[in-house]
């Protein structure tokens, strides 16, 4: 059986991979901000390229495995922690830490629920459904994206989920660096700042996509 430290290491490695994946996903999705005509064809061509690339296919399996391992390991860790931690009649321990650091399990569950919705919205339809084709013959993912983000409640779900993602990343990246064993005070401080900046940029950027589409693209 893995030690408590090794279980955290699994959390750290899968988490860092997922956080890195977000950057690639984010950079690709920036195409949605292009003028509509250009965005339409370019985004579909990009999706087609990714779907047909063997390297991307391998990475996608690593991605699915990481999501499952991260969630399962997180569940195991949380259950164990629930058992080993104490319950007090009068409890003000919260003054010493941030709420999002104490509730990574809840934030993670929210993100997992979001992922189910997100996969169902796009991934499932693209892979197993029958999406329309664009004028170049690529599957028209762009139209799907636009259709989903015409509905205000989807925009709201996406934006709120990105807020949960932001807090999850702020603690997660910082915690992962600890688990990796970086103990030099100067670099720990720098990594913390970079981690927070990364979390804010990624989640705000993702949140702006549905908002931008809702208000500008018809």
């Amino acid at each position, binding site marked *: 059986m893995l030690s408590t430290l090794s279980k955290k290491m699994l959390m750290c490695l899968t988490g860092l991979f997922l956080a890195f994946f977000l950057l690639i996903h984010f950079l690709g999705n920036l195409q949605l901000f292009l003028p509509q005509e250009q965005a339409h064809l370019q985004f579909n061509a990009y999706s087609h390229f990714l779907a047909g690339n063997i390297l991307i296919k391998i990475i996608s399996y690593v991605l699915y495995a990481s999501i499952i391992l991260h969630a399962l390991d997180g569940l195991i*860790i949380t259950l*164990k922690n629930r058992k080993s931690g104490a319950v007090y009649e009068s409890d003000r321990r919260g003054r010493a*830490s941030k709420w999002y*650091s104490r509730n990574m399990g809840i934030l993670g569950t929210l993100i997992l629920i979001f992922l189910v919705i997100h996969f169902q919205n796009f991934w499932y339809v693209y892979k197993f459904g029958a999406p329309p084709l664009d004028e170049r013959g690529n599957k028209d993912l762009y139209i799907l994206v636009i259709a989903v983000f015409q509905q205000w409640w989807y925009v709201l779900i996406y934006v709120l989920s990105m807020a949960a993602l932001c807090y999850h990343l702020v603690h997660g990246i910082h915690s992962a660096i600890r688990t990796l064993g970086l103990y030099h005070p100067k670099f720990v401080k720098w990594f913390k700042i970079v981690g927070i900046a990364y979390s804010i940029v990624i989640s705000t950027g993702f949140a702006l996509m549905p908002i931008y589409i809702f208000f500008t693209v018809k």
Partner: protein
Amino acid sequence: MDLHLKIWRQKDRNAAGKLETYTLTDLNPHMSFLEMLDTLNEQLITHGEEPVEFDHDCREGICGQCGMMINGIAHGPLKHTTTCQLHLRSFKDKDTITIEPFRSAAFLVKKDLKVDRSAFDRIISSGGFISINTGQAPDATVIPISHELAESAFDSAACIGCGACVATCKNGSAALFTAAKITHMALLPQGKEERSQRVLHMVKQMDKESFGHCSNTEACEVECPQGISVLNIARMNFEYNKALFFKKK
């Protein structure tokens, strides 16, 4: 000053405990928290009742024996202070104070506010030592150690093992305690020799004692009477990862 106390009373390890209410009057605000409990106990004994049992020893903030949850905070409202160094002037007249024992799955209540922290001792026995031949004391200059290194090792060695980190941690994790011991020895030349097996053994024992995982919430450092840095935990992770990676069998 007058104080209302709600104190955790528990007959023994297996009994169910509950909070009992007591009121003390005419207390001196400069009294220490433990002196206040002594006063209560004198009154209880006078009335033929069982005194409240609690751990204490030096009452100077250095032995790590005392420790209780005071109004839901380990060692009470002051930061980086042991329970014995807390005084009634930190509270207001007529305050109600809830006092509970330090708890976790690995810290069982023996009686009232007294807690079995022998899990810490077993972690130390599993690797918190240096196997050297004893004999004549070596000359102090035989192994040169810089002032900075000695200070840095002492920052970790300053841990008094009171258990506030475990009691404060939502997971009941002993990461800060174990990490402080590992770091203290990994920094010094005498301790470097056995650093790999030490970290593996101590982490194994820590897990055996049913302490939880470290979630890096950093609450332990905030409530630690000695202000032991959470970077010790990062250092433990580094030592552990390295030892595990290079393990030969």
